[in-house]
């Protein structure tokens, strides 16, 4: 299969859907003339024009809120939030309008709205340009939350989001944009929500990775195997809905689990995953559920501090070794 980048995969999903369906369009800050700050929408203005690749004012609240309005009258907006850190500028629209519109209307509102969010720490970008907000809206019923870790998943999950009828927060890790991988060309290739990927099979310890940490978990697993530990790596791919069956099945097999995400440890996505396992699979566990995440401190500018604060491959290795009694 041809290989493309995560960024190209996302663009391809958008472009194909926009070609196929005139209701689909893209709007956000600098997505057009500037080609997107992350370059994801590069060239799309040239193909689709200002009508369908819309540069907005710097107004996150209105971007997301008018995405909802457009969805309610039958459009299928894709909106881009340049940095996940800015999501909270539209917090109320997300929590009180977008998430609840369907339910409050007795199930009648249709909200096919995809919110693409560039998240994670791109390096020395400090506290307001580095956050991983994946868990910030998990407590809010009505949103779906997606965290692709590979180019293929990025494309397939984005298509599921755009073609679906519910609002989706689609988190793209900035440091994954350049990652290359095989991506199907079939325009109907879709990755279903709520289906975790077992990206590496193993029997000794389960490593659940979220977003970019899937890549780090795989690297950790390779190193662990050289120490005689056979790690299973699982990518939930969507946090809401969450495929807990696959997670539980894996834990039932290995008896050991490490959960890794770049978000801060406290109340990150790992808290929910851990709590589910502690509620539904505790009898399978041979040891503690270890969570790996950023320390509970705003992301520092200093590269040395930032490195120290962010979770890495070695943190996963150490946790796995500890669980396997080899630390």
């Amino acid at each position: 299969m041809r290989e493309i980048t995560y960024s190209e995969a996302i663009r391809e999903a958008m472009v194909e859907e926009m070609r196929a369906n005139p209701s689909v369009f893209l709007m956000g800050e600098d997505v057009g003339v500037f080609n997107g700050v992350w370059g994801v929408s590069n060239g799309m203005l040239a193909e689709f024009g200002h009508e369908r690749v819309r540069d907005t004012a710097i107004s996150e609240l209105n971007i997301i809120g008018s995405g909802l309005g457009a969805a309610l009258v039958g459009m299928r907006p894709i909106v881009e939030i340049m940095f996940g850190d800015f999501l909270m500028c539209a917090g109320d629209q997300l929590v009180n309008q977008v998430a609840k519109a369907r339910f409050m209307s007795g199930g009648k509102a249709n909200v096919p709205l995809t919110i693409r969010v560039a998240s994670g720490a791109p390096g020395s970008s400090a506290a307001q340009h580095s956050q991983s907000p994946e868990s910030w809206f998990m407590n809010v019923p009505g949103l779906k939350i997606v965290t692709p870790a590979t180019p293929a998943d990025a494309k397939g999950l984005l298509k599921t989001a755009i073609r679906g009828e519910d609002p989706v927060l689609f988190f793209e890790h900035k440091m994954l944009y350049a990652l290359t991988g095989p991506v199907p060309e079939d325009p109907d290739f879709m990755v279903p929500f709520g289906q975790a990927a077992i990206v590496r099979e193993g029997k000794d310890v389960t490593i659940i990775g979220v977003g970019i940490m899937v890549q780090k978990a795989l690297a950790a697993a390779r190193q662990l195997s050289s120490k005689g530990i056979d790690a299973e790596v699982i990518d939930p791919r969507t946090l809401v809905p969450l495929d807990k069956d696959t997670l539980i099945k894996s834990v039932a097999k290995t008896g050991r689990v490490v959960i890794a995400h770049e978000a801060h440890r406290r109340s990150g996505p790992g808290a929910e995953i851990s709590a589910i396992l502690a509620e539904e699979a505790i009898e399978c566990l041979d040891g503690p559920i270890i969570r790996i995440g950023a320390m509970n401190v705003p992301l520092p500018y200093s590269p040395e501090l930032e490195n120290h604060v962010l979770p890495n491959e070695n943190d996963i290795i150490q946790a796995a070794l500890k669980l396997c009694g080899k630390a």
Partner: protein
Amino acid sequence: MRTGPEANEMKEPYESDILAEFFRRMTLVREFELRAIEERRGGLIPGFIHSCVGQEATAVGACMALSQEDVITSTHRGHGHLIGKGGDPKYMMAELAARSPGYCNGRGGSLHIADFKLGILGANGIVGGGFPMATGAALGFQMRKEKRVALAFFGDGATNEGSFHEAANQAGVWKLPVIFFLENNLYGEGTAMHRCTPIEDLAIRAQGYGFPGVIVDGMDILAVYEAVREARERAIAGDGPTMIEAKTYRYRGHYEGDPQVYRTQEEIQSWQRKDAIVRFRAKLVDSGLFDDGDLEEIQGSVIAQLDEAVAFAASAEKPAVEDALAGVYADTHNGLVF
């Protein structure tokens, strides 16, 4: 201030049908509110009610200037908007009574009534929450080249939320077919407008967004109707948004039970003397098109309709707890999202 012609004269000839309908809907709004308050006291309605008694002309005048294909976003004080846009009191009352056949199947209540078929995108519990929704709907219409507009109702208090600013700015840039319709009733909850807003006429804010701001007498339904009709024409012609500020007043508390320490009886009465329904009724009689009997007949039909609505609501089924999780998502991915 732009007002309808004085001395109970009508500037332009209106068909008697539409005049009757103006009267009927305003009466229906007024009576709906009074009846809902009564039914709340009686226990049929569990949630709180923000009544729009006094603001009938703005709600009905604005909505009747729209076509059925146009959409509105409404507020916490939305019953008038819903009725104005053609909402059925039966399903409204059933919703207030938290029953299954209510507009939101009992899930939403007064604050969240929506009817997408009628272009009612929803009441809203969040002050200012509906602005971006209206600009987004207008964007959809513009992109599809449909001759439709979105009208956002809002209060003086809502004008100070950031959402107003962001939506108005973007609507101005894109010349979206949207009408920002302000019902300025001088108070946001217990806070008088002059205590939280540094200007008297909020319509001047429109200048900052490059579109016209118009002030109308919100107690004069024809003035409201004409202003919205004109704004709609502008919008449809591609000339962009209009902000309309209608000066009006709510007669009752912010919500039922509000002790209203923040205003005087005299102030309330001074507005009641300008009552939109009373004035319009007099105008209809003076026009010679209607006599008192005609109007009492309309009034009677409204009461009958509400009796029916209440009976319908009271006997309607309550939502079943087995369905508690229904309607959060279109697609539950085999139940996984819960």
